[in-house]
């Protein structure tokens, strides 16, 4: 039995909008185990982005507890959350979010800078990761000199630098053409199947979700379905 990476207990998130309270998440209970490949689906406004922010420790729930590898992170301070993000979460964003005018290598090194890893080690590991995503010849390219797919691969390399237990991708193929989307999803599949990473992908596209093993669907701040991906099972058979 593989161990629990993520455990959400009675998570609530309420936004105050003037006098109106908007309940973005209502009593969410969810467990994700090590090595799972999960898609979180839902239309816009369903609460999936709010959940993604909480899972990525960018935001705190207004109620309930969130455990990462058994540690409660729902009451941590901003700076403590920064460190949790640095060590435990690898982010991949729809718009890549690479630092402009900064080389691919420097971008990949960045989380290690905040983790206070020495320069030589940083460089060695960043090169290794860029080689891993097929960008061994693009170390010194700036983001604006790379294609969308290449930028997203740099972002994936960056997400892996501190060997985080959670890889969190928010609409990772949203800005990519279909060919690049397939390439990126294949990388995620490889990260999960071969390297045994826990990967969570937030998406509204079924084509993307079908790559995963487990699909959690949100509607109106609640989980409406949580089931194993039948397609994948059939493929596996």
């Amino acid at each position, binding site marked *: 039995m593989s161990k629990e990476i993520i455990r959400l207990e009675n998570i609530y998130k309420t936004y105050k909008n003037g006098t109106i309270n908007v309940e973005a998440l209502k009593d969410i209970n969810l467990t994700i185990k090590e090595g799972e490949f999960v898609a979180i689906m839902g239309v816009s406004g369903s609460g999936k982005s709010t959940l993604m*922010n909480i899972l*990525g420790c*960018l*935001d705190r729930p207004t109620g309930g507890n969130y455990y990462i590898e058994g540690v409660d992170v729902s009451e941590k301070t*901003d*700076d403590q959350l*920064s*460190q949790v*993000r*640095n*060590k435990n979460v690898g*982010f991949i*964003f729809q718009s890549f*979010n*690479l*630092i*402009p*005018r*900064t080389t691919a290598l420097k971008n990949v090194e*960045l*989380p290690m*800078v*905040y*983790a*206070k890893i020495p320069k030589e080690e940083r460089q060695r590991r960043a090169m290794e990761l860029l080689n891993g995503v097929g960008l061994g010849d693009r170390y010194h390219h700036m983001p604006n000199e790379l294609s969308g797919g290449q930028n997203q691969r740099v972002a994936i390399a*960056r997400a892996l630098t*501190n060997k985080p237990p959670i890889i969190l991708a928010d609409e990772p193929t949203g800005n990519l053409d279909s060919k690049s989307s397939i390439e990126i999803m294949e990388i995620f599949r490889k990260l999960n199947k071969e390297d045994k990473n826990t990967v969570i992908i937030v998406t509204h596209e079924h084509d993307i979700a079908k790559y995963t093993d487990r699909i959690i669907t949100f509607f109106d701040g609640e989980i409406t379905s949580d089931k194993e991906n039948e397609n994948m099972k059939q493929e596996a058979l």
Partner: protein
Amino acid sequence: MLFLENIKLALNSIRSNKMRSFLTMLGIIIGISSVIAITSIGDSAKATVSKEFESFGKNNVMIYPNWRENPDMIIGPNAAFSQEDIDALSVRFEKELAYIDPYLSIQSETTVGRVKGNWSIQGVAGSFDEFKKMNIIHGRMISNSDLKGKRDYIVIEKKGAEIFFNTENPVGRIMNLNVNGNMREFVIVGVYAEEKSLFSGLMSTSAYTAYSPYTSIQGGLEINASMLNIYIGDGYNIKQTSDAMVNYLEKIKGTEKGFYISDSVESQQGTVDQILGTLSLAIGAIAGISLVVGGIGIMNIMLVSVTERTREIGIRKALGARTKDILIQFLIESMIISAIGGVIGTALGSGIAVIGMSIAGAELVISPLVVLFAVLFSAMVGMFFGIYPARKAAKLDPIEALRYE
């Protein structure tokens, strides 16, 4: 985050916005360079003036009737100084009084061969050159026995020697001088070279200067002087001693209190120093205001930069940057902009001072303390005006910052 990493980041950011960074620095550059230039020029002027005063001899005191407060005062024969007064003063202040003469001088037209010109001759006592710094290049200075013997000896300036005698060393030759209507022959006993000074230009007349025993050039049989030229011996308080001399003179001359006053080089220098000091402080303070303006410029640009880089800040925070890391990153950036401005400003200000002083022909004094202070102060300006934008950056909410377009 590592300090060195932040410096690299800041330099990168400055490089990627060269024009903007330069314009931001300009305020600091102008501020620092004007402060440095003004204080350096002020210090140089002070040093030059003080050197001038020293060439007179710092222990030089003049005693004269108080014309300043009583410009209409009639100086009766009784009030003028005589040889007896000089002798009495010399006895009473035997230890304190190092030198005294009645500050006599004459103008004379002189012809030597085919050269004709005006000479201005100052009457001195013996060993005058020991007190006023003089550079005797040939022969000797007037001695005390010349004074007592009322010898018609003269020590002339080198330039005059060259023009009148066609040699730098005319010692032993004769000059005819008109002393109160009588033509007399003066023997040249020495030649001195005039030191170049700031005041020599101001005080230059068409006349050549020379020194003779005051007893030789005095008008009639009696000295009738309105001023005493005194040097006070080393180790005596100049103010106290000259006050005591004034009191003594008032007593022996039977005048009311405050009839005579004394004026020392020391007190004059003090006054000039004070004026120069106040002046450079005042102008320096005005220049300092431009530093504050420069600081506000930095704050303004850093605020723009923070807004522009909101998304970058969001990314950094998502990847694990703490509040402190972002704060330090932006603070170092504003400090570096400001410190670079400070260094350029120091170089520019020193350059202005060098050029200004070379035009004025004065000695340049750039105090390393002022330079150090200027650079540190500019970095402090950068830090002070960088704090607000840096705090604004550091406090950004990562979710909103990531969403920022």
